[in-house]
């Protein structure tokens, strides 16, 4: 096995597992602020208990996010040393800024939010929820800035020794690629959190728990989850996904051609809804196509020419092309389903019949894993689409990995992480399931009720 592949798998595996946790915490942080704000406005204790319940779930996710996140920062150096040596002056900055500006803030106020309930005033407790939200969203921002520079390098110069250095702090942070990607990604995180919240509401309702007056959590969660879900599933496609896609099309044309499975340049290019890319014959097998739609989506006119892969030399095609194509199609397909489901659920909510429509409740319940898949597929699209570049147009992936770390040593630690994370996944599921099946009522009260 070659070392480059091992190092790529190493990072891909650990970062994919890691991102299962932050996508929920970032979205949930916003929804917790919503719950705390309602609690403060209405003065109703049940909203406060709901916020604390989601705070506990946030806390578990946060810990798993922290412990799986620390390896990510290390792996830039351990597995991608040659890349880090040249690019550290640029992307080391946003990574360090994440620690300095976000993690201190986030961990400080999360400690207050989770442990300081009895020591804080209501306003102060609300404020710590807001600060946790701010911290987690700043954290996401700096990671996107890092990735955006690798996708679309800006504001850099090269030193005589080959190292990159930052020329402008603000241009680095306000990289247009990054701003679009950030908007798209954060909305994606809200989609995950909304689906999880709606699913828990549906779960309680189907179980017949928490139905009554001062503890009707099922309805509260359904309402907040479906409304936030409707907004975020629309915004994640339009305008954020749309704008981001157009930007990718202009700046990484080979990537967009591969994502869409467009082997040959076409005027009035169609969108392939389904079909299997065949690299040997350079065509899509069994295609289902919407004519002219791709030209329209990218350029706003059905007659525009869209460059196919035939316009690019073979050594600039994204490697693992079929995986890129599928990742993109899974993301887009699921995104469409999300809007339809949330439109339907929101309509029933508005009519006041959602709580009686059991099949929709079931759909909401079993759909909660899908946003995780969609977010993961979206990131795969971005990162595989960037290939064969590590820094787009400047440094190839094959030039970046740690040449001193052999494939054998890399595989040793990759297998170690796989084993450890399998265990982590099990423990996480147990912890969260227990928290959810216990529900939002305080522990002492539930114990009394059980007697």
């Amino acid at each position: 096995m070659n070392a480059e592949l091992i190092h790529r798998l190493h990072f891909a595996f650990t970062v994919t597992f890691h991102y299962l946790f932050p996508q929920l915490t970032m979205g949930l942080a916003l929804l917790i602020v919503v719950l705390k704000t309602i609690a403060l406005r209405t003065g109703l204790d049940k909203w406060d208990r709901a916020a604390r319940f989601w705070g506990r779930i946030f806390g578990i996710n946060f810990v798993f996010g922290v412990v799986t996140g620390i390896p990510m920062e290390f792996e830039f150096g351990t597995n991608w040393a040659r890349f880090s040596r040249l690019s550290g002056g640029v992307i080391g900055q946003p990574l360090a800024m994440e620690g300095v500006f976000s993690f201190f803030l986030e961990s400080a106020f999360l400690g207050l939010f989770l442990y300081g309930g009895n020591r804080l005033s209501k306003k102060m407790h609300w404020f710590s929820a807001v600060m946790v939200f701010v911290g987690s969203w700043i954290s996401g921002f700096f990671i996107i800035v890092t990735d955006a520079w690798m996708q679309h390098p800006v504001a850099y110069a090269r030193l005589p020794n080959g190292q990159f250095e930052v020329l402008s702090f603000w241009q680095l942070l306000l990289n247009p690629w990054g701003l679009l990607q950030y908007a798209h990604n954060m909305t994606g995180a809200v989609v995950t959190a909304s689906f999880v919240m709606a699913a828990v509401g549906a779960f309680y309702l189907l179980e017949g728990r928490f139905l009554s007056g001062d503890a009707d959590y099922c309805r509260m969660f359904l309402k907040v989850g479906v409304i936030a879900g409707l907004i975020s599933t629309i915004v994640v496609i339009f305008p954020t996904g749309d704008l981001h896609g157009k930007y990718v099309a202009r700046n990484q044309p080979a990537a967009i051609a591969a994502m869409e499975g467009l082997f040959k340049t076409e005027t009035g290019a169609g969108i392939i809804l389904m079909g299997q890319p065949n690299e040997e014959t350079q065509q899509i097998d069994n295609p289902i196509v919407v004519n002219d739609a791709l030209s329209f989506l990218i350029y706003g006119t059905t007659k525009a020419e869209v460059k196919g892969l035939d316009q690019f030399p073979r050594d600039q095609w994204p490697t693992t092309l079929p995986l890129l194509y599928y990742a993109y199609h899974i993301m887009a397909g699921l995104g469409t389903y999300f809007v339809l489901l949330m439109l339907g659920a929101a309509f029933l909510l508005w009519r006041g019949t959602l709580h009686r429509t059991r099949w929709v409740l079931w759909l909401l319940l079993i759909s909660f894993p899908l946003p995780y898949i969609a977010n993961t597929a979206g990131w795969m699209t971005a990162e595989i689409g960037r290939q064969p570049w590590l820094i787009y147009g400047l440094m190839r992936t094959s030039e970046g990995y740690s040449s001193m770390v052999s494939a054998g040593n890399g595989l040793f630690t990759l297998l170690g992480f796989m084993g450890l994370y399998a265990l982590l996944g099990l423990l996480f599921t147990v912890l969260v399931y227990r928290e959810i099946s216990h529900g939002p009522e305080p522990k002492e009260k539930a114990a009394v009720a059980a007697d």
Partner: protein
Amino acid sequence: MMGFIWFWLVAVMIVGYVVLDGFDLGVGVLHLFLVRSETERKATLASIGPVWDGNEVWLLAGGGTLYFAFPLLYASAFSGFYLPLMIVLWLLVLRGVSLELRNHLDLGVWRSLLDGVFGLASALLAIFYGAALANVIRGVPLQPDGYFFLPLWTNWQPGVAPGILDWYTVIGGLVALVALTLHGALWLTIKVSGDLEQRARRIVTPLWLALAALTVISLIATIVVRPASLNNYYHYPVTFIVPVGVVASLAALWFWNRNAQPVKAFLASSVYLFFMLAGACWGVYPTLLPATTGAANDITLTRAISGPHTLSVGLAWWTFGMALAVAYVVFVYSRFKGKADAATVGH
């Protein structure tokens, strides 16, 4: 000048990490054999519950700062210390998760397993950190291209081709283990009460004696392994204040612990850690990572430092950001001041 500033800024972040995460590592080690009941264990863990993950942020922020200020050092050291770093990562994962699990689940017999994992991971982390520092002082087999790769051990001798572990780095690991356990014991004397507090105070005595002996042994060993580490001190004799500070802080620690002034004793222990780390940094300065393969291969400050634009951009936000960070830290610690509340442990 920029090099000098960033060298010490990174050093400050490392000291911040060791002083802060150090006590919760120490508490992790101690809780294995200091507590006698579930209530006491809960109180022990509650003393670090709200702060331990914030303490680990210092490692991340310090690592990030090292990354952009000295990319060559970051790339070289992280890939060269590949295996021990991965083990450190696994230990950090296990430690965080076992603490979180034991707080959330009433698992009966499994809880003892989790406590064991938490304590063992804490102890191993302390040992690895000490050994890591000792590796940096001893030097690594750097190649002319600035890279190296260390096996976990070779013949247990410092030399041209050493391993991560040899007799010298093992001493470093033991110093860290004892120093951080002591640090954790002093933290407990502040945060817990009753019988447990008394036991924590009493255990300081044997730990202190062990630490004093190990400190002397490690200083002698360092001079044997790397005689050049005294050069800076002879060149600037005023810096002999560092070893004096080590001795003085140890003495103060003893005195204040005896007089039941736990906060002062804890601060003395922090000062001890600061002087030990600063002394080590000063011993190698301006080299960042010495080579066992000849001084020409050393990674020096001038060789590893980032470009001037990067550093001036960095200095602006770093100063602002760390001022904020310190404010949060002070704020949180003041909110959780006084004896820990065991009821808050299972958030």
